[in-house]
């Protein structure tokens, strides 16, 4: 039997950010840097509270989350099936993998001008950019996961009379689930990075736009506040996706 997992220490996870904020406050209070360049955590907290009460922060967070979830889910919905196809078919790999690698090498930010020209300002260009950031890593990781399924699983499935579409649901998908979940975490992080950049340039709202707006208004406290919120939501999204790794039927992929 494997040894039981060590118990998590939530206090430790809270202690390190607390120490960081304390150090930030001390450096800021010591006036080592001008307040216009290095805001005090208290000012940032006050700014965040004001933005929250006005409703702007919540609206921006919702707008960003909507774009990220739309782009990310679209990438998963198309990327996983594309990866399954490429993983199973040598012909498909030969035909499409060079294209996937080409587009994967392009920074999603390079698409910003085209995104604005084609789709204007608002949700659509941001969703498009998130899709361009998340789709290709998902395709590649799914392809690799399918190609590395041990052949013994398919042999055992054949012995057990598992064929056709049932092979996909009973063998292929569960066999790649741990790797795909890890990729989804990476892709969600990428999506969150890209939405901020996209909203800075092609948005009228969202947390990226809030950063740009604060910068234009020289509100360094709001700028830092928006950054904090982005970080907290990003970490929260990852924690949400980590829950997928707690599903008993995928634990085997993380405990060897």
């Amino acid at each position, binding site marked *: *039997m494997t040894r039981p997992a060590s118990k998590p220490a939530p206090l430790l996870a809270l202690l390190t950010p607390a120490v960081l904020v304390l150090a930030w406050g001390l450096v800021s209070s010591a006036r080592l840097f001008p307040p216009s360049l290095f805001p005090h955590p208290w000012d940032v907290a006050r700014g965040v509270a004001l933005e929250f009460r006005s409703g702007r922060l919540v609206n921006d967070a919702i707008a960003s989350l909507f774009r990220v979830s739309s782009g990310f889910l679209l990438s998963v919905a198309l990327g996983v099936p594309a990866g399954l196809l490429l993983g199973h078919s040598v012909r498909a790999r030969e035909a499409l993998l060079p294209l996937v690698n080409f587009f994967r090498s392009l920074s999603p930010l390079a698409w910003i001008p085209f995104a604005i020209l084609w789709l204007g300002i608002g949700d659509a260009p941001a969703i498009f950019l998130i899709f361009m950031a998340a789709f290709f890593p998902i395709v590649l990781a799914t392809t690799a996961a399918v190609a590395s399924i041990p052949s*013994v*699983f398919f*042999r*055992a499935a054949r*012995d057990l*009379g598992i064929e056709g579409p049932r092979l996909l649901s*009973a063998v292929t998908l*569960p066999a790649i*689930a741990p790797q795909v979940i890890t990729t989804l975490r990476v892709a969600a992080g990428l999506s969150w990075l890209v939405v901020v950049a996209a909203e800075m340039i092609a948005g009228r709202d969202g947390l990226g736009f809030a950063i740009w707006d604060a910068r234009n208004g020289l509100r360094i406290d709001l700028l830092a506040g928006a950054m904090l919120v982005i970080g907290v939501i990003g970490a929260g999204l990852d924690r949400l996706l980590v829950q997928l790794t707690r599903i008993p039927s995928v634990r085997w992929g993380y405990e060897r």
Partner: protein
Amino acid sequence: MTGKPLLCLESVRVAFGPVEVLGGLDLQVRDGEFVALVGPSGCGKTTLLNVCSGWLAPSAGRVDRPARLRMVFQQDGLFPWLTVDENILLGLPPSPDRGAQRRRADALLDLIGLRTFAGVYPHQLSGGMRQRVELARALGGETPLLLMDEPFSSLDYLARLKMRLELARILRERPRTVVLVTHDIEEAAQLADRVLVLSERPARVCAEVALDGSRPRDPTDPDVVSAVHRILTMLGLESNGESRLIGAPAATGARGRRE
């Protein structure tokens, strides 16, 4: 042997490009027999088993096999995303009677002594326990023929000894025709009714050693010792009664023939 032929290979040849792995091999396994295949490393034992299972089509020759058979694999063939219980249930023939399925699964869990581990995932079990579950899943198919590809090779020595006893006990309760590929000659001599010795590549059956008595045989039994020595000699690992292997027991005498 009185049983009717269950598995029959005639002049089977397998070649991968210019490399001929099986060179016109003949093999017949009768119903109820336990046949072990031994041979030099890389001679094509697993290829032969792949042909027997239908996973690999021969380049030439004829293969008659039962429509349904099950295989126990060298590496983990259990699905790691399913519990022990779910793996065993998956091995049962489909039936709308869920109660009957449950009883069959429970009987198999009892047979391998892992009823209390039913809800556990394979990666939480030891290697020996996993092999027992795989054996139970294979037995659950109620197919007449079991093909076993070095099923205990990844286990440590003591676990291997224990699994030999377990396999013999399980087969007493659920008799099957078995073809076992193994590199462990003592294992073959303890368990099999016939040990077939394969030649170097391209492999053919070059010799056969028959053994009597109930399984598992005592490894110190003179017949078993003699069989082990005969096989070692056939494989070129022993000559003139002098073992080339450190610790190999002395030869006495055994039934066998060279082809």
